[in-house]
């Protein structure tokens, strides 16, 4: 009887201590920018190569599956021929894949050439394992020059920013996450707003007053305010507008310009000396900006 009482006392004390520790953890910031803990660093460095290996073996898995299916129920000769064809097709698919990858990388590099930052090309090797957060893991880290708060883009537009780095890997908080708020400009009307991630791969544009003439189809780009993202990077497009009956602002749905379903390679922009936010405007915008400032001076 005494033993049972002692055990339940220990249990209650354990529960209370762990609850206090977790309440403390929750009361801290949602996530910490900067260096991860030693435990986090070691486990990430050990396990991320496994993630990287699995991510890159995706093609082999799919091709194995397809080849297996294709040789079932055929005669011996047919099997040999099918194997040969399948091998050739595989080669062709691989070449086609390499061609597509080349073209993607070319586009990516051409796009990023317009930005006056140091660029690091990286591959996506993992996603956050919790449903409510949208974070991706890249196969490049501080050893490759990646720093926290570095913006991450593709040729289609903005992906997010780096919030954690280890020597060889870094984690990116995408614009799909509700913790990531991007200061944006509506391209057509030059209205400022904040894009925030909601759930299921969608975003919302906030703080746009009802009298602003924003329309469905309007394109959004980074405003260059806040010191993280350079000005002029594509963010998304307005897909739905709801002017509520009460309140001063409109509810605007935004679809990101980056297709996060097909995200494979990204570019991390490392700010160089003197390139803060507004320095990295794509050529067209930069030229337009220069013209505008010259006219203003006149």
């Amino acid at each position, binding site marked *: 009887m005494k033993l049972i009482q002692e055990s339940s006392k220990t249990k209650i004390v354990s529960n209370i201590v*762990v609850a206090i520790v977790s309440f403390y953890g929750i009361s801290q910031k*949602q996530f910490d920018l900067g260096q991860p803990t030693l435990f986090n660093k070691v486990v990430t460095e050990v396990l991320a190569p496994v*993630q990287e290996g699995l991510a890159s073996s995706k093609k082999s898995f799919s091709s194995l599956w397809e080849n297996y299916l294709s040789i079932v129920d055929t005669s011996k000769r047919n099997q040999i021929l099918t194997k040969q064809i399948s091998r050739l097709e595989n080669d062709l698919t691989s070449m086609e894949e390499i061609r597509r990858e080349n073209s993607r990388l070319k586009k990516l590099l051409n796009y990023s050439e317009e930005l006056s930052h140091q660029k690091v090309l990286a591959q996506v090797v993992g*996603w956050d*394992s*919790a449903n409510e957060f949208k974070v991706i893991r890249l196969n490049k880290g501080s050893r490759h020059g990646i720093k926290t708060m570095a913006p991450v883009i593709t040729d289609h537009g903005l992906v997010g920013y780096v919030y954690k780095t280890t020597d060889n890997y870094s984690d990116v908080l995408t614009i799909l996450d509700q913790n990531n708020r991007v200061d944006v400009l509506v391209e057509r009307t030059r209205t400022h707003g904040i894009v925030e991630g909601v759930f299921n791969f969608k975003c919302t544009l906030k703080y746009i007053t009802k009298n602003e003439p924003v329309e469905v189809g309007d394109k959004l780009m980074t405003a260059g305010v806040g010191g993280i993202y350079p000005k002029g990077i594509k963010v998304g497009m307005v897909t739905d507008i709801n002017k509520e009956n009460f309140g001063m602002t409109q509810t605007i749905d935004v679809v990101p310009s980056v297709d996060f379903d097909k995200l494979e390679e990204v570019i991390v922009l490392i700010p160089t000396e003197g390139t803060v936010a507004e320095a990295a405007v794509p050529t067209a915008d930069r030229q337009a900006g220069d013209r505008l400032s010259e006219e203003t001076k006149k």
Partner: protein
Amino acid sequence: MRMRFSQLLISFAITVALLIGLEIVTSTMLPAFGWKEYRLTFNVLIVLFLAIRLESPAVPWMILGLQVVHSVFSIEGWALGTLAGLIVMSSANYLKELLHLTTAIMTMLTVQLFQFIWFLTVTVIICLKISDFDKFPLILWSFIPGSVFLSLIAPVLFWILEQIWRVPKDVGPRGVEI
């Protein structure tokens, strides 16, 4: 049934290894094959097993340990899941005499019920942190598809965990005492 402390450490180490394997499946393999919209939060399922099937003062610490490992794969961190795990464990303690995980269907229903309590807790805390309760239904709903899938595979995973923790078939609703 009582379990020795040394056996607990071995079983816990195997459970951590299993969690790491499943986290890699969730964070890398499934997204690589196009499953990106919903994550399968296997850590929830493993914590549920510990909370429902084990009877020990060490369980809160094991939940904390598992959540710390989970935090390597998720920005969510360890704290949110630990608190949710403790709440689920306390609810399970009250309902333990009513829980009979003897059939696959009962296991699925029980796991779905406790997952709902877990996600309700997590959703409330997220809404408090972002100071926006308008998103409450949206956030809660986003957990449901993944949780249904997890409930469907719960009998298999619970069977594996029962082998790891050496839970005998006739152990009764209170589970293994450590």
